[in-house]
C-alpha cells in the first residue's frame, strides 16, 4: 500500500512576504545610499554625475564664515565636495514609506524643491538633482546595483529556509 503525503507549499504567501521584506529593505538601502551619495557630492540620479560647484561668491562667503541658513550662521561648511549640507535639516528630512506595492520616498523639507527643481535662487545651471522625480529618470548605477545585491541576498536567504 502506497503512502500519500499532502504538502502545502504556500508559494503565493511566501512570495508576498518576500515582496514586503524587499520593499522594507529597499527603503533602508535607498535612504542610506541617497544620503551617502549626496554627502560625497554625487547625484543619486543616473546621468547627473557630480553636483554643480558653488559660485565663487558663495565659496568666498563660506571661507569667511558668512553663510547663513535658516537664520543661523553656518561654520565649517564644505566647499568641495558640494554636499548640500549646511545645518543638516534638508538631509534629515528624507523619508521612505512602503505603500502597498510602492515605495514613496521624499525630502519633506521645502529647500529640496530649490535644489531638485528650480535651482537655488532660480538658477537653472545650479540644479542639483537629489531624487529621480522626472519621468524616465533612474537612480544611478551604484544605487541600482546595491539594490540588486540586496534582492539576491533576500531571495537566497528565503530559499535556504
Amino acid at each position, binding site marked *: 500500500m502506497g503512502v500519500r503525503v499532502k504538502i502545502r507549499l504556500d508559494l503565493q504567501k511566501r*512570495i508576498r512576504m*518576500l*515582496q514586503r521584506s*524587499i*520593499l522594507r529593505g*529597499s527603503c533602508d538601502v535607498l535612504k542610506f545610499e541617497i544620503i*551617502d*551619495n549626496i*554627502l*560625497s*557630492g*554625487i547625484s543619486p540620479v*543616473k546621468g547627473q*554625475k*557630480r553636483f554643480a*560647484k558653488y559660485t565663487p561668491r558663495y565659496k568666498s562667503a*563660506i*571661507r569667511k564664515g558668512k553663510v547663513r541658513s535658516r537664520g543661523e550662521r553656518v*561654520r*565649517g*561648511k*564644505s*566647499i*568641495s*565636495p*558640494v554636499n548640500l549640507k549646511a545645518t543638516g535639516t534638508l538631509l534629515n528630512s528624507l523619508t521612505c514609506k512602503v505603500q502597498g*506595492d*510602492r*515605495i*514613496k*520616498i*521624499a*525630502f519633506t523639507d521645502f529647500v*529640496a*524643491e530649490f535644489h*531638485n*527643481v528650480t535651482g537655488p535662487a532660480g538658477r537653472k545651471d545650479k540644479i542639483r538633482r537629489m*531624487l*529621480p*522625480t*522626472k*519621468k*524616465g*529618470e*533612474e*537612480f*544611478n*548605477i*551604484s544605487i*541600482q*546595483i*546595491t*539594490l*540588486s*545585491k540586496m*534582492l*539576491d541576498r533576500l*531571495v*537566497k536567504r528565503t*530559499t535556504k529556509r
Partner: protein
Amino acid sequence: MATKHEELQQKLITLDLTDIDNPEAVKADIGELLTIEIGRFVAKGNSPVRGHKSFDILTKKYAKDEKQGRRVANLNLEGDMLESLGWTDEGGNQISVGIQDSGERDKANGHNGIDGRAANKERRFIPADNERFKRNIESKVNQILNNARSASSGLFPFIITERNHDDTTSITLTSLRGSIIERLLRGR
C-alpha cells in the same frame, strides 16, 4: 575581472564580456559605477585601492587655512580634479577609468605617489599595475556582469512612475514578482 596598468591617472580594465548580449551598455554601466565608487571612497578619505587604508589626515594648519578646519583628506579643494574623473571605452572588452582632463593629471600623479612623495602623503585612488579595486567595488562590477548574463537585464526592476503633487517620488515595483521567481529559478 582582470586589470592591466597603463598609467597611474588611468586604469585600463579588461572585462569578461562573454555571453553578454549588449556589451556596450554593460561597459557604460561599469565605467559609470567605477567613477561613482572612486568618488564615494575618496570623499570619505578612504582609498578605493585594495591594500591601501584611509588617507592620513591633513595638518591642522592646512585644514584651518584651506578646508574650513576639516581634516579629512578627501582630495577635494576646488573639486576640479575629481570633476574630471571619468571613463572611456577603449574598444573590445576594455575600458579605462581615471582623470580625463590632461590639466589635472599632474595632481593625480602627485596624489597617487608617482612624484616620489613620502608614503604617508600618498593617496592612491587609481590602482597601479599590480593593484586592484577593493572587494566591495569589484563585487558590484561582478554583479553588473552577472545580471547582464542572466535572461533579463536582472537589474532591480525599478520603474519611476511619477512625481507626486507633494514632490515625492513613487516607485512601482511592477516586475518584482517576476524578478523574484526568475531569481528563485536561477538559484540566486
